[in-house]
């Protein structure tokens, strides 16, 4: 299964991005990694070009909130309803309550939201979601 990943905005935190890449590969996904410093439009372009079934955006410096507001609009415009949208990392600038952050990003159009969650726990949950949605594992 194809998955597009990357770090949104002017964020150059590369370590977690590489770890997600390695983890997804070891779980059998075909990974298209756009790397750090990626804009929302670039993610959408990559999903269309690769025909990926999962888009996994990450953010460490909390910029995601500003960048992801247009997601729903783009999702509708390009008819990407079948794509699983995932976001994870540190999703707020400063201290943020998970109980507020998760519904906020769900409203933006994300199916799965992982705020300050462990990488392996998050990816286990993604695996399960993929299996439920598509009926197959990868």
């Amino acid at each position, binding site marked *: 299964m194809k998955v597009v990943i990357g770090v949104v905005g002017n964020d*150059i935190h*590369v*370590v977690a991005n*590489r*770890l997600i890449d390695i*983890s997804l590969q070891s779980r059998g996904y075909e990974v298209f990694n756009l790397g750090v410093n990626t804009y929302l439009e670039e993610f959408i372009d990559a999903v269309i070009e690769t025909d990926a079934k999962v888009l996994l955006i990450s953010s460490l410096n909390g910029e995601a909130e500003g960048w992801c507001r247009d997601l729903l609009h783009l999702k509708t415009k390009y008819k990407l309803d079948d794509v699983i949208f995932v976001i994870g990392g540190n999703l707020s600038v400063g201290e943020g309550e998970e109980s507020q952050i998760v519904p906020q990003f769900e409203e933006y159009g994300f199916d799965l939201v992982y705020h300050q969650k462990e990488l392996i726990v998050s990816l286990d949950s993604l695996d399960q979601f993929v299996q439920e949605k598509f009926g197959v594992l990868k």
Partner: protein
Amino acid sequence: MSLLQRDRDIILSNEYVDNFDFAEVEEFVKNASKNLFISHAFKNNKGKTLVQPRGGFPTYDKMHALYEQFAPVVDVLPMTIDSHTRLNDYGSAAKMLRLSEETETDLLNGYPLINHGYRTTRKMVTHFDTPVSLRHGTPDARLLIELAIASGVFEIEGGPITYILPYSKNFPQDKAFLYWKHVERVCAKYSTINEPINRESFGPLTATLVPPCITIVIQIAEMLLSLEEGVKSFSVSFAQTGSLNQDLVTSKVLRKLATKYAHKIGVTDATINLVYHQWMGAFPRDKFKSDSLIDAGAMIASMVGADKIITKTRAEAFGIPTKEDNAQAVANVQYTLNMLRGIPAFVDEEEEENLTNQVDEIFEAIFNDKADTLWRKVFNSIKNGIIDVPFSPHIINNNELITVRDKQSNIRIYKKGKLPISDKSFKYEQSKIDLGQNPNSVVNQIIKDIGVML
């Protein structure tokens, strides 16, 4: 007029540079005090590890105060440049400098040398009469280094690989090679009229599980590109790996092969120095543990016979250190170094042979590239993954090389990607790794290995 001089004229006729006087600068360098040249200190200081902290502040006054604090304890003063200047955005640097002066808060993470200008900066540098090292991270440093040298800063850090792959996502790598070629030529030109300008490569790279063979290959590649243009004093460097054994082995192989490859391109009259960076990865938040880590780094610098050590402070985990923290760290490192004189020689033939083979195998592939010039060969080698830097954010980097630590904390190659090392070399690396069967174990191991000093 030479092509080089024509390029320099264009570069120096920048709106942020106030009337650069080439003849006056040349006269200044020619008559400059020998004490400003680290190349001179290296020559006359055999056996003593020079100590250099990190640091840079936006305003002239704070920079002066920092040097004032450092002067009694350091051997080399740092001049760390702010990030706007690194990206050639002198307008933003000027604005932030003005605001920093007005509000007395630091709105830049370093010294905006272009905005201060060389006439002002030179006053400070000549006043302290101590070598100053330019620390930046600039892909296109053609203007910056002119102003540095005109200010009396006679050591220039950086290079076309080490200032791109760890720092940038998409600055064109080929452009960086050409910009740095220009830098080398200017340094070489000034090197003939007094003591040589010293060039230093940035060995830590991403400071995240970089295997020694990659560090050494990149150090030597940048050295060769510099010597090729006529630079006569060059420092190769590496950072504390997290394994005492690997540090010792790396230093020996790096020194040995740097000389070997310099000779291979026909350069026998250049001085090659070794610089050691104290731990560049994530620091503990416990300041006492930080002190131990810094002590261990000082001890290892002494054991590897480093010509220079670049220090960290106990405040590393908390942001930019105060000048007092910084001076204290230097004093402690000097104390430790002074204690450790006459350390016994250390040999690990098996590890040295393995690392030497890896570097030679990678260089064989680089030299066999069909391109006509060395920089193109190195450029192609980065592009096709012969050189692969773990955790580089740059789009050109191959990202297939995966490393983990073994039981002795040595960084080992787990997946070699397109690294052209022999089966024998790779088997040696593999034989040291023990991860068990869990599919999550590699990632878990990497997370643990990155945070090894926490």
